[in-house]
């Protein structure tokens, strides 16, 4: 006898289409016009920051950097849906969660310049630094979620990762761990179709990335990742669920990396422009603007004011990053909770002999 012992499915949600039309039956009730405008502003600031850092990198003023262009809705919609007490574990492209959490812009800039001071107050904002080692963030996030549950805090954890990261063992281990202990965690898979030069199709034979959650006993949904309203709703619903003992959640957000992986690669080498073109009208910022404008919530003069305000914020951060200097002594002070004699000797030798001048 053969009988079916399991079947699963993944649903895809879109609330706002490319023209800004809304599916009212799904529109989140708490997302009022004030919040929508705030989201719109965050997304714009994220893109402006990304553009500026790209320009600064080209001038040699900051180091390698991963632009977020095209992925603003995934990051803003999810981070904005979280409470301040919810923990966020971002990866190297997730600059918007930092902005939304109120980390000063100059810290982001200083991180890209390569100074650890950038992250010297992240914990108070319930953030970790941007994780660089792909996939390793997931198990740590599951540990934070365990900690929240153990300490009886009512908050949840949001951890980000890209499509490529879902091939890493830690992704499976983390989902598995989260499932076993039923932890308050949401995995947001920012599926931008490319892991540096390797397309999503070569990453896995799985039809969706969301369905990987099903095997671990987690809940999952796929959303239009360029639809900030859908991302917001999916995250908000998932947060409500995991905070009320629901299963851990995986949200796969379908988006597209409009630019390079980082400033160190040229995407024209491995993907045709013809693949990028169809994504241009799907732009997440443009889409929300259409909706806001058609509902008389936004106009050209507001747009101009916002752009000016963003420019002044960014100019201020740029001035600060230009002044930021290395602090080699601080490297030594933060290796252990104590200063080993052998390390002190290395530091003293450096200081006495002006190694750093």
């Amino acid at each position, binding site marked *: 006898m053969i009988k079916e012992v399991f079947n699963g499915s993944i649903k895809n949600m879109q609330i706002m289409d490319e023209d800004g039309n809304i599916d009212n039956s799904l529109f989140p009730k708490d997302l009022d016009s004030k919040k929508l405008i705030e989201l719109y502003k965050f997304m714009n600031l994220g893109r402006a920051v990304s553009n500026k850092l790209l320009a600064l990198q080209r001038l040699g003023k900051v180091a390698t950097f991963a632009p977020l262009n095209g992925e603003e809705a995934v990051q803003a919609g999810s981070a904005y849906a979280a409470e301040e007490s919810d*923990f966020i574990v971002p990866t190297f492209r997730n600059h918007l969660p930092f902005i939304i959490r109120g980390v000063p812009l100059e810290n982001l800039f200083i991180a890209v310049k390569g100074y*650890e*001071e950038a*992250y*010297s*107050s*992240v*914990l*108070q904002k319930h953030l*970790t*630094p941007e994780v660089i*080692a792909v996939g*390793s963030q*997931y*198990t*740590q*996030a*599951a*540990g*934070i*979620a*365990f*900690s*929240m549950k*153990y*300490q009886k805090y009512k908050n949840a954890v949001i951890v980000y990762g890209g499509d490529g990261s879902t091939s890493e*063992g*830690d992704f499976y*281990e*983390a989902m*598995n*761990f989260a499932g*076993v202990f039923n932890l308050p965690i949401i995995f947001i898979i920012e599926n931008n179709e490319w892991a540096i030069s390797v397309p999503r199709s070569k990453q896995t034979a799985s039809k969706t990335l969301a369905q990987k959650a099903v095997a671990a006993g987690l809940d999952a949904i796929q959303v239009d990742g360029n639809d900030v309203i859908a991302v917001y709703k999916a995250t908000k619903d998932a947060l409500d669920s995991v905070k009320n003992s629901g299963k851990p959640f995986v949200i796969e957000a379908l988006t597209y990396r409009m630019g390079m992986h980082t400033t160190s690669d040229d995407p024209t080498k491995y993907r045709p422009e013809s693949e990028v073109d169809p994504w241009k009208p799907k732009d997440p910022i443009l889409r929300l603007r259409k909706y806001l404008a058609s509902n008389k919530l936004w106009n050209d003069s507001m747009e101009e004011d916002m752009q000016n305000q963003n420019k002044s914020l960014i100019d201020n951060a740029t001035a600060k990053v230009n002044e930021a200097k290395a602090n080699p002594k*601080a*490297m030594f*002070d*933060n*290796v*252990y*909770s*104590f200063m*080993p*004699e*052998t*390390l002190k000797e290395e530091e003293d030798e450096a200081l006495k002999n002006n190694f750093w001048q």
Partner: protein
Amino acid sequence: MITNMVTALNNALDLCLEENSKAIILGEDVGKDGGVFRVTDGLFDKYGPNRVIDTPLAESSIIGTSIGMALSGMHPFPEIQFAGFSYLAFNQLAAHAARYRSRTRGNIKIPMVLRMPVSGGVKTLEHHSESPEALFSHIGGLVVMEPSNPYDAKGMLIKASHMDDPVIFLEPTKLYRLFKQEVPEGMYEVPAGKANLVNEGDDFTIITYGTMVRPAQEVVKENNLSADILDLRTINPLDESAILSSVRKTGRALVLHEAPLSFGAGAEIAARIGEKSLYDLKSPVMRLGGFSFPYPFSGDEDYWVPNKNRILYSIKKLMNS
């Protein structure tokens, strides 16, 4: 109480969990089974499944989740069942546990005590007899400890639990039940980063730790030799001043460990003696370790691990060169 190392460690963990409600133990089979060596025996019954946690069989997640717990207010005591399986979690240790403090300028700390059995001599399967202390020490940012007796094991584990650092606590399986010792019932600390002079003499110094301390003592005693024997206890950071002060006195040094000779902790110690005490030496610094290839099958292990013959041979070479 007179006790072996397993009971001393069990007692230390009990006190640590009793003292700190944010301390938990997690790992494979650490719960009802009490760990494959019974180091956590009885703690599941006493503290329950929320504090003595059987995890899924996935080492990277044991360490990754421990890091997440540590940075958000808890003090995890993960156990990796055997050090040979810690390689699956190496990324979490090298890329994260070791550097959270430095990459956040001290904002995020990882107070964590990672216990794992190391070294051989007990006829186990492959991968159950590794000595990876040099791998972990080389990274920087991880404190690496390895006790050689029940008293140190308990005091060092308690010390590790009071540190705000990721501590790799290596437990030599061979020593778990090899001998008993008087161990105080209550809390006490053995300092981190401080070597212990376990034998005093004049002619040479043996710098060692873990499984090799006892055979070194036996060789010295059985052959009526006059030697300092320094039990490092903490491998990283190294107690350089204790090493140098003994070597300056005796003028001869043998560095001894079970781990493979080449690129081992012995190389680091020999280099430091060479850099700072070359002119105090009467002969070149000698090293003795396991042979420079991976640990063999158990049938061959007695030919790989340095034994008393090889220790005596190295001492003679040291004294005659």
